[in-house]
């Protein structure tokens, strides 16, 4: 009996091991404009990956419902990368082989770095990704890539500008940097510090924690001793921010709390709101609740039809929707000029984008000559309305 079970079990698994060869490739139609993606639908970034996947997918549907690009349909081919480089690379190669995509969306800096060589060599694909790292906003070494918004450095420069312009206190603000020991945490800091110095804003303490800061007691004690009146968090989704706030409150100090980009999503502002702290920070895009932006309206309409259960529009969703817009714009410009969609043409098309109207997703006319957007906007959590709302004008750097 037991033997039988074992046989069945082991054979069962051996069979499933074969299935990648059996699993058929999806049909390829030459007329389609193909957007491939390796999304972190599982793993440590699942919470973002699902939203990002929906965002890009929904944009494609929406665009096609509006007639596609120059009469050609967009097609979205996605697979899960689990936020693992090797899995991501496998996905990239697979999609490159089966669907010959014109655009490819990566799950982060490591994957972008890992596929850049092949992407350039293939000469038929433009890439973008979640990553806001400065290393991938590099027209020379990463020519096929663009950042869907501002890089961390830019965001922190915007933040410092904002602090400079809004600080009311008699003496200078005491700024504390708290960031995770990870790309998301560390990438923007040097630029931010440089700008702070230029503006004469003192950084009184810098605290590095582990990405998943389980125990941060000592770090908080350190922060407390510096008595900051502004604390800038970078690289956290939520934890360990709440514990920082709690302990500072216990210590009777109540600084303004700033964050950037992904750190301004629901998990963060909800957790802090519970502690009576309203999060402020620099956002890449208009928030999902921004009524002034026409494109956000479009998104809301689309969602009310297709995802009625989805109430909160995360920046991740908007980010991939926006990325889709850029992809479409590039394709559109190439096709208008009767140029084939190869890398040089698409790169040229990207860099030709100037004072482009993004329907308010980015409030200023967008200039993509540097493969990134040099603007950001301050947003603040509204305690009674329970969402992030504009807290200042769009700032260009």
């Amino acid at each position, binding site marked *: 009996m037991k033997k039988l079970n074992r046989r069945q079990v082991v054979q069962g*698994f051996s069979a499933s091991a074969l*299935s*990648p060869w059996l*699993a058929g490739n999806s049909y390829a139609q030459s007329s389609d404009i193909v957007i491939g993606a390796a999304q972190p*639908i599982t793993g440590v970034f699942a919470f973002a990956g699902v939203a990002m996947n929906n965002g890009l997918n929904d944009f494609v549907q929406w665009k096609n419902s509006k007639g596609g690009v120059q009469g050609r349909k967009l097609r979205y081919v996605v*697979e899960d990368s689990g936020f693992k480089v090797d899995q991501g690379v496998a996905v990239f*190669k*697979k999609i490159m082989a089966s669907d010959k995509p014109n655009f490819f969306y990566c799950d982060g800096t490591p994957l972008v*770095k890992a596929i850049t060589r092949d992407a350039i060599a293939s000469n038929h694909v433009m890439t973008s990704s979640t990553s806001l790292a400065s290393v991938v906003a590099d027209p020379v070494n990463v020519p096929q890539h663009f950042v869907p918004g501002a890089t961390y450095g830019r965001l922190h420069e915007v933040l410092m500008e904002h602090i400079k312009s809004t600080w009311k206190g008699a003496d200078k603000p005491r700024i504390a940097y708290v960031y995770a020991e990870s790309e998301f945490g560390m990438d923007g800091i040097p630029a931010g510090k440089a700008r702070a110095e230029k503006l004469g804003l003192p950084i009184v303490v810098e605290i590095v924690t582990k990405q998943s800061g389980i125990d941060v007691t000592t770090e908080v004690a350190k922060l407390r001793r510096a008595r900051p009146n502004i604390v800038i968090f970078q690289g956290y989704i939520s934890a360990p921010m709440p514990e920082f706030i709690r302990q500072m409150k216990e210590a009777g100090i109540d600084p303004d709390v700033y964050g950037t980009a992904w750190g301004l999503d629901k998990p963060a502002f909800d957790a802090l709101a519970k502690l009576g702290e309203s999060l402020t920070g620099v956002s890449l895009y208009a928030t999902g609740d921004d009524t002034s932006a026409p494109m956000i309206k479009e998104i809301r309409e689309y969602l009310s039809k297709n995802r009625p259960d989805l109430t909160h529009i995360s920046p991740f969703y908007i980010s991939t929707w926006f990325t889709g817009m850029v992809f479409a714009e590039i394709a559109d410009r190439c096709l208008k000029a009767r140029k084939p969609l190869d890398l040089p043409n698409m790169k040229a098309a990207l860099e030709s984008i100037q004072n482009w109207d993004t329907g308010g997703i980015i409030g200023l006319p967008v200039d993509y000559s540097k493969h990134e957007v040099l603007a950001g906007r301050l947003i603040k959590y509204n305690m009674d309305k329970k969402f992030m709302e504009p807290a200042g004008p769009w700032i260009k750097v």
Partner: protein
Amino acid sequence: MRTGVFYENFQSEEQLWNSPVKRFWMLAFICALLTLPFWGTQYILAMACIVGIHVIATLGLNLTTGNAGLISLSHGAFLGVGCYTVAYLGKLGVPFYVTIPVAGIFTAMLGVIVGLPSLKVKGIYLAIATLAAHFILSFVFREWTPVTGGVQGTTIPRANFFGYELMGDKDNFYLIYFLAIILGIAARNLGRTYIGRAFVAVRDRDISAEILGVNLLKTKLLAFATGAFYAGVAGGVLGYFYGAIVPDYFALTLSIFYLAAVIVGGLGSVLGSIFGALFMTFVPEALRLLSNASSHWFPNAAGLVLPMGQVVFGLLIIIFLVFEPHGLTANWRRVKRYFHLWPFKT
């Protein structure tokens, strides 16, 4: 049907593939493998490369843990050492046929240092000593920015063979499998010499082995060194394959992945290492593809189905431990025995 094989002298019996049939299949397999780039899709090719790298690494761990019974949780970090060595030397313009051996040797030396506690402690204590080594190494990967590029990671220049750049996966494929085959045979060789026997003896009863004339110090450190050498080489080719790497890649989970591969494949068997690496690479991939396919019919299935990957990974380990302690090689032998006498006995 195959009749029995008879030997006139020990020499013919001691050969690696000691029957014409074995030699034939070996040859056939290698031919099929070497032509893969011409019949496989780009995806299959990439997967094959990844498997090849895993095979090399698993072979190494199987020597240390499978043959000599020394549990190592720093194998993944060893790959990192190899990878960063290649990256560093590669940037200095050193060709790959130098960097890869150097990576191997350097990692082997490190392996000796990490293996030192094995003289004083065994089993789980040793496992945790190697765990310590893992944490220290990954700290170095993250902090020693000038060499490793820190948390941002680093890039590895393309392998260059006398002016010819190994660019596509085709080239990398041949590089990887050249090494995989060489190292596979080497591991097999080691197994049938006095050193291989000493490894097993140390695993089974190290005190008796010592009394029978086996130098424990030398043998244990040698086991660590060879294992680490394989890891270093695997890390090297890994670097050339991906062209860019971040420290997170060499997480503890990587070491565990290889331990799992060793267990699923079969402790102390070269064939086991190959099976293990193949299986542990393809099962999650298969799962991914399945859930992808399923998501055509019900969207958002992915988000629910895919975390099960971890569950399946865990289940695999346990199922094999409980039901098939000798790993896939045992199944393989069963199949072989069956065909050996087929069709006369079934």
